[in-house]
């Protein structure tokens, strides 16, 4: 019994596309097996098949050497397969303990037996070093802790095949380190882990072996120790990828965005600290300024104040020398501001509109797309088709595709295409590469650098240090609503940035 799980020759067709084309995945007991591939390479489909959500058209699944037909998630769970989803499945006003036992409560005469459950949870938490407080409310713990609750959920159900779906996307560098340790600990205890990711360094750090998918095909399975990051990325993308952002030194020009003494109060709980406290910053022409920091330190509020989604309580926002603090969202949008929002589903796209409609979402009222209130369908379609080919947005039905059915990477490309094509003076991008694969990240960074080279001011908010270090001309670190560091990437190490982000260091030159 060499493999604990074996998916042999899996084929899955969707209308017009073969999502899995004779894919074979073999996972050994006690190993961390990375599943690497671009968005739309078929990773999710493969895992959905393992979870019984799709039936494969052909191929077989062997569990501990025996062939199984998995009919649904419930059965997968009974077979010991557990998954930490990208979006956590937790009840926010329940405690950690309540969330863990949800669905598998032990009862006596219809009453919950919480004590036993608590003992088990505490024991598991200690065994794997998860340090979770069973009585804390989910809404009050950090994202990293929430993820550990998800891990505990799997352990509590005695799953021994654990699937992690892009687990590091939401974590700080320190939390990522800890997660990696936890994963290693789990593997050492004999759990088998399937680690879905497109971050190559992480694979190098924890995975034993790696299976690479590309366009639905299995490119191969390699021992991670035997390959370099460059080789992995080439396997994934199918060509050589430049991981380092290429950009020339450039002298910044006039200021485009000035934020002066901005304060945003916490309107939900008056007692707490301000979300943004007396913050000032400047972004100049031809300059990429990156705001680093752990999620939840006021970045979202700062961005929303700049874009006009929320009002500023104090201070000014100046765009190209004009005070726009009191101006409407539309005014800012039409006066040089472009915005790639953090949550593309919530703010970036109308998912039930088609691609063309989404591509003109910021400009449909301009004379070139409407006359006397009537939309110019032809012009809109033509414009959409231009952007689709220019930015290589892939979809099943071109301009008429419902955006909801597109892959995450292509949705993000659509937003980028829309915002960059508007030819803004200030490009404000929040987490522009979140959830994107190497090829798409390279592309996105390329677009941002191009915008900067053409003299635009760029403000990027990112939670990923490597991105910040790579992309920025200047780095601002935000901690608890204030800027605690203003540095050049060449003058600082990732470690130092991590300390700034954690609030344990403060630069003088702010």
């Amino acid at each position, binding site marked *: 019994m060499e493999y604990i799980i074996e998916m042999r020759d899996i084929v899955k*067709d969707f209308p017009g596309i073969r999502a899995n084309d004779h894919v074979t995945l073999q996972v050994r007991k006690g190993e961390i097996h990375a599943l690497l591939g671009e968005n739309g390479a078929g990773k999710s489909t493969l895992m959905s098949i393992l979870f019984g959500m799709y039936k494969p058209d052909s191929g077989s699944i062997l569990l501990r050497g025996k062939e199984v037909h998995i009919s649904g998630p419930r059965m997968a769970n009974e077979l010991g397969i557990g998954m930490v989803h990208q979006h956590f499945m937790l009840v926010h006003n329940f405690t950690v303990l309540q969330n863990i036992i949800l669905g598998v409560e032990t009862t006596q005469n219809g009453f919950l037996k919480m004590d036993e459950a608590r003992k088990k949870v505490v024991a598991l938490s200690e065994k794997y070093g998860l340090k979770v407080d069973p009585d804390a409310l989910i809404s009050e713990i950090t994202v990293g802790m929430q993820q550990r609750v998800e891990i505990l959920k799997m352990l509590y159900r005695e799953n021994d095949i654990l699937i992690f779906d892009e687990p590091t996307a939401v974590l700080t560098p320190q939390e990522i380190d800890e997660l990696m340790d936890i994963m290693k600990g789990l593997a050492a205890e004999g759990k088998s882990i399937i680690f879905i990711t497109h971050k190559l360094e992480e694979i190098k750090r924890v995975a034993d072996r790696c299976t690479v998918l590309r366009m639905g095909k299995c490119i191969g399975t390699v021992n991670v120790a035997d390959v370099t990051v460059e080789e992995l990325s080439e396997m994934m993308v199918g060509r050589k990828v430049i991981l380092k952002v290429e950009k020339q030194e450039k002298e910044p020009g006039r200021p485009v965005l000035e934020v002066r003494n901005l304060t945003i109060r916490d309107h939900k709980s008056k007692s707490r600290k301000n979300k943004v406290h007396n913050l000032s910053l400047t972004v100049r022409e031809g300059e990429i300024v990156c705001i680093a920091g752990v999620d939840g330190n006021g970045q979202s509020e700062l961005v929303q104040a700049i874009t006009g989604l929320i009002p500023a309580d104090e201070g000014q926002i100046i765009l190209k020398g004009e005070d726009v603090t009191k101006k409407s969202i539309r005014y800012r949008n039409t006066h040089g501001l472009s*915005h790639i929002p953090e949550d593309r*589903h919530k*703010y970036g796209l*109308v*998912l*039930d*509109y088609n691609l063309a409609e989404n591509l003109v979402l910021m400009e*449909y009222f301009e004379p070139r797309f409407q006359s006397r209130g*009537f939309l110019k369908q032809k012009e809109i379609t033509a414009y959409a088709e231009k952007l689709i080919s220019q930015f290589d947005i892939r979809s099943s039905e071109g301009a008429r595709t419902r955006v909801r059915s597109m892959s995450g990477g292509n949705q993000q490309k659509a937003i980028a295409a829309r915002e960059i094509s508007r030819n803004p003076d200030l490009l404000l991008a929040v987490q522009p590469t979140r959830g994107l694969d190497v090829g798409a990240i390279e592309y996105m960074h390329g677009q941002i650098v191009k915008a900067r080279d053409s003299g635009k001011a760029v403000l990027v908010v990112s939670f990923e240090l490597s991105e910040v270090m790579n992309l920025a001309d200047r780095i601002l670190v935000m901690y608890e609503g204030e800027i605690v560091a203003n540095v050049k990437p060449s003058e600082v190490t990732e470690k130092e940035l991590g300390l700034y982000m954690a609030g344990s260091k403060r630069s003088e030159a702010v």
Partner: protein
Amino acid sequence: MKTRKEKTGFRIPDLSRAAGPISSIVAIAVGLMIGFIILLISNPARALEGFAWIIGGGINSAKDLGNVLYYATPIIMTGLSVAFAFRTSLFNIGASGQFIVGALGAVLVGVKCTFLGSFQWVVGLLAAMVFGAVWALIPGLLKAYNNVNEVISCIMTNYIGMYLVNWIVKSTVYHQLTNRSLPVANEANIPKLGLDKLFPGSSINGGFIIAVLICIFAYILLNKTTFGFELKACGYNRFASRYAGISEKRSIIMAMVISGAMAGIGGGLLYLAGSGKYINVEDVLAPEGFTGISVALLGMSHPIGTLFAGLFIAYITVGGSYMQLAGFVPEIIDIITATVIYFAAFALIMRNLLQRFRLRKGGERT
């Protein structure tokens, strides 16, 4: 699978390609089948005969066909009203109130403003439109500025509207003996446009044509204009709409006003039809408003779908009235037609089933 359901509250029914009409037809078939089962239970011997009347009664004669169009007119309008609000993710359950308030506007002009001559019916309809719009403006404003749930405020405006109309009718255009409004002037009746010659003996008039034109107008408004683009965007995703600089408040208010105007016109079209309709002073909400919800659901909230859904429900109603010939009592007839309509309104569920079926066969790839 990773597609997240937005938490914008109401799920918006809409026409998605072919799944729309197909699911409506399947829903109608299911509704008819269940209606037939009820017939079998109540009177097995003549069930088939009764069922034949439901199916065929609407095209029994030119008169019946004309009456189908006549009955369809007001419910097409209330259906359109509900459907229009749906597209902006508002549930206008207040069509009933807007309908009767609109009718009041029409009747007031129809009785009092005889000086308008041959324009009287036009002004009457305009009054109906304005009255309905104003009545819907109230829940619209409450929703936009105070975030009051439109379902609650619409239900309240339904009752307030009903009693208000009773009171105004009693104090202005009241006919004591019959306890209803006075008859409108002849010039206030909508012209027949020769339709009465085409369908002799029926109550049909030009109102049906007006309803069809308004359906087309609504279709164009929703699908071809920037205004419709904004309304729908708000309905689908108000966060992304705000970020695109669309005023959510304005969209909510405008959607409610237009929705109310349509329901109001529906009231005007019925009470200026020249078919002997009067506003009865009684404590009953106008049923057309609620039938409108069924029409909108069956029509998948699409303006043209609503047109056909209204025609279908009118057709069933006319056919049902013939069932007495097969020995069914009126109560059973009401139950049958209600059942058919009720199940027909499940078109939405049918569509979801169809979509799930398609998805299982393979669909979105994430």
